[in-house]
């Protein structure tokens, strides 16, 4: 805060940039992690069932134990290929969710710590006037 304003970027600009970098890393790590888990599960699955004849005639997904987290963890502990793949899919689904949660938290933090966005908006015109114009 007390550093010279000439050679340092504006504080909230820098903050935005570092948040973007963290989000980028979060997404990349999430995708690579889930892909590795799916790959490991896929290798186990193909190793065990790769030569079996596929039967997709009847659909039995509703009865699958892999519908819930306990079911998936139970299967993973037994080194079931399908369960490990499902865990990887769960990680993949969780990645963008984690991103949204992270930016929501970051937005709240920055709204609390720096009060700059609100005054700059209200200095242009009051919120009610804004709404009337648009």
């Amino acid at each position, binding site marked *: 805060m007390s550093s010279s304003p000439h050679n340092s970027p504006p504080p909230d600009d820098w903050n935005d940039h570092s948040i973007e970098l963290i989000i980028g890393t979060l997404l990349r790590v999430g995708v690579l992690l889930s*892909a590795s888990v*799916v790959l490991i599960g896929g290798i186990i699955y193909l190793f065990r069932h790769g030569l079996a004849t596929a039967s997709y005639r009847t659909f039995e997904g509703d009865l699958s134990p892999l519908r819930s987290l306990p079911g998936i963890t139970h299967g993973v502990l037994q080194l079931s290929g399908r369960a490990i793949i499902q865990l990887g899919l769960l990680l993949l*689904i969780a990645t963008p969710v984690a991103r949204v949660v992270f930016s929501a938290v970051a937005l709240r933090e920055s709204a609390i710590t720096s009060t700059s966005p609100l005054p700059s908006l209200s200095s242009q015109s009051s919120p009610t006037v804004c709404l009337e114009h648009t």
Partner: protein
Amino acid sequence: MLARVLHLDSSYPTAQGMEDYTVHRIPLGFGLMFGAGTLSGLLGIGSGAVKVLAMDQAMRIPFKVSTTTSNFMIGVTAAASAGIYLARGYIDPGIAMPVVLGAGAGSILGARVLVNARTKSLRAVFSAVIVILGIEMIFNGFTGRL
């Protein structure tokens, strides 16, 4: 006007450094996005093409920003439905595995190419792909496979 209130104007990196852009016709863009969402909910087709068209043509957002934003939006919205599918047992791990690995490797490659690709060639590829998709859907509609 609305773009300024919503803080939508921004900048994006190009080969010549950061370039500023402004966002236009937000209500029209909103309407088209609503249509895109309804279509994908009804037909299960990826509404990414419609989103890119809405952002590129209606809102005049730079093409690369449109495509990357569309991709990002799909990631977040797909997570919502994918969670439901998973909880209902609609996802078969044996089928999902090659899809995830193939699509994942392809999208990492695509993202790397996009950074240096020329917008003109990206547009050409995009147009070709949506034309092919359109023909395929019309064909499926006539043969009753949709």
